[in-house]
């Protein structure tokens, strides 16, 4: 029976790999999810049947409760809250790894001499360290995303030194535990430090960096599962953990590149200092326009590129925007959406938000695909996006966002920006785009303004 389980695990691992492979296109993505589900079911069923599992009276209720909590989360959660849910699930996964590691550590104490030697112990401390710090770190990230915690970075003097010292002590204890696994009294201190470190690691990171942080925590959660695989000598766990770890790694690299920052800069840079010194802009004039004027320009446009940012979701204007895109398409315009990698609150978030509003995905373009098209486009319509359109990133070396890849909105023949007011955006940086001669500022709530434009349009739609 044990043998059979090993083979089942191989099938599961293959299904997991296929599952991720099928995520390469929306057409096969559902198949991918299905493959993952089958792989998971097989693995659980195999484990329950293959090992002599006792204590069913404990295990079954745990499964029931987990399912009872999981189903409503999946169906009730609005798409805007998906980043929070993701952070929460990183926390849950990491907590599980940490607790399993802890249980293993105490459980095996009687046989410490034979079973807690060398690499098993190394795997266990890595598992618990990563698990505990990812647990609290993810909870902090979730709090920031949910806006229960302040979005702005919380900083204090010598922050990096404090964090580093703390981590060094935890690492020292980890080494000591590896060498002398019977020092059980050290373990709670070690776990406590890891939990504390997770909190301290995330609080200095601002809300704008959350997409990167989520991806890094994703990677950590995967690696802790992987370490569990080493501790339990289970290859399936190693494979699944490595897949999750590499996925988180790639996504965090993509996010870092999209903001022109390095890992260390995100984790230890405290973007907060930048915010303080940003306000020094001279009063410059902008051109503003009414919905009527905007509508008449859009009506005659042959090609329109819409640049959505998270502000769009805050205003809940996705559906109205899709109606606008449809109306313009009916008028004969070529309408595309340009999605900056950090347009939402987590990697790919904006795509999900637009897909939810029934924007067809073949209208959504990534930055690299669409940047060359701005020069030929009649109107670029910016809604709820700010820093990712700021030309200062290209030439102004003093700008905090210098070097960040941006959407070349300023190259369009006409630029329209829907914005509540002239307040600078999240990073507190003034946007040159707004002062250009070809830019029209459309002041107002995104949803209300788009509706107004829509109202101005249909008269001619019918006629044409």
């Amino acid at each position, binding site marked *: 029976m044990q043998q059979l389980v090993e083979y089942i695990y191989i099938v599961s691992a293959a299904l997991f790999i296929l599952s991720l492979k099928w995520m390469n296109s929306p057409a096969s993505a559902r198949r991918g999810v299905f493959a993952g*589900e089958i792989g998971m079911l097989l693995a659980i069923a195999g484990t329950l049947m293959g090992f002599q599992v006792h204590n069913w009276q404990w295990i079954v209720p745990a499964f029931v409760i987990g399912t009872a909590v999981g189903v409503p989360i999946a169906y009730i959660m609005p798409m805007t809250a998906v980043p929070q849910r*993701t952070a929460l699930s990183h926390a849950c996964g990491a907590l599980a790894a940490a607790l399993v590691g802890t249980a293993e550590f105490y459980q095996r104490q009687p046989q410490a001499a034979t079973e807690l030697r060398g690499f098993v112990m190394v795997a266990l401390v890595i598992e618990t360290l990563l698990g505990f710090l990812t647990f609290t770190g993810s909870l902090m990230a979730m709090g920031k995303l949910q806006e229960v915690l302040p979005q702005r970075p919380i900083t204090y003097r010598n922050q990096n030194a404090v964090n580093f010292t703390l981590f060094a002590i935890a690492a020292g204890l980890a080494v000591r535990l590896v060498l002398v696994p019977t020092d059980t009294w050290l373990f709670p201190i070690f776990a406590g430090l890891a939990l504390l470190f997770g909190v301290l690691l995330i609080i200095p990171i601002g809300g704008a960096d959350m997409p990167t942080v989520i991806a890094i925590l994703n990677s950590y959660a995967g690696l802790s599962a992987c370490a569990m695989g080493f501790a339990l000598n289970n290859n399936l766990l190693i494979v699944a953990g490595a*897949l999750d770890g590499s996925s988180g790694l790639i996504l965090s690299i993509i996010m870092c590149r999209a903001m022109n920052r390095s890992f260390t800069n995100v984790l230890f840079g405290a973007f907060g200092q930048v915010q303080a010194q940003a306000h020094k802009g001279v009063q410059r004039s902008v051109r503003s326009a009414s919905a009527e004027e905007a509508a008449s320009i859009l009506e005659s446009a042959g090609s329109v590129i819409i640049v959505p940012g998270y502000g769009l979701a805050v205003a809940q204007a996705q559906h109205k925007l899709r109606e606008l895109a449809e109306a313009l398409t009916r008028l004969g315009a070529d309408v595309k959406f340009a999605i900056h990698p950090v347009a939402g609150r*987590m990697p790919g978030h904006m795509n999900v938000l637009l897909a939810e509003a029934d924007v067809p995905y073949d209208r959504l373009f990534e930055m690299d695909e669409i940047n060359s098209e701005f020069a030929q486009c009649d109107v670029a319509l910016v809604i709820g996006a700010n820093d990712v359109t700021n030309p200062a990133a290209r030439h102004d070396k003093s700008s905090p966002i210098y070097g960040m890849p941006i959407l070349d909105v300023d190259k369009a023949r006409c630029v329209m920006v829907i914005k509540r007011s002239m307040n600078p955006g999240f990073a507190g940086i003034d946007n040159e785009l707004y002062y250009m001669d070809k830019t029209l500022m459309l002041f107002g709530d995104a949803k209300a303004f788009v509706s107004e434009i829509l109202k101005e349009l249909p008269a001619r739609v019918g006629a044409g």
Partner: protein
Amino acid sequence: MGINLPLGLFVFMLATFVGLEIIRKVSPLLHTPLMSLTNAISAISVVGAIMVTGAQDATTLSKFLGIIAITAVVTNIVSGFLITDRMVKMFKKREAKK
């Protein structure tokens, strides 16, 4: 329970390379569902949690920590797969209605 470290590292190395290659090809459109999917998959740590809780000689502490772990990861499995499916269902091509 002996540990086969070289084999484990070997598997880890291969799985990481496979992971990096596959994930690189995932459409950026789907990065959010990708993250919730990998999250659900890494909840395979349920296997470890079951083994800890279900061991014949499991101590009360093991059982206690184990069921918390099982509850947490089962929540991840269920909500992870379901919400991923909910998301990927939304991605539609433009219907040929024009």
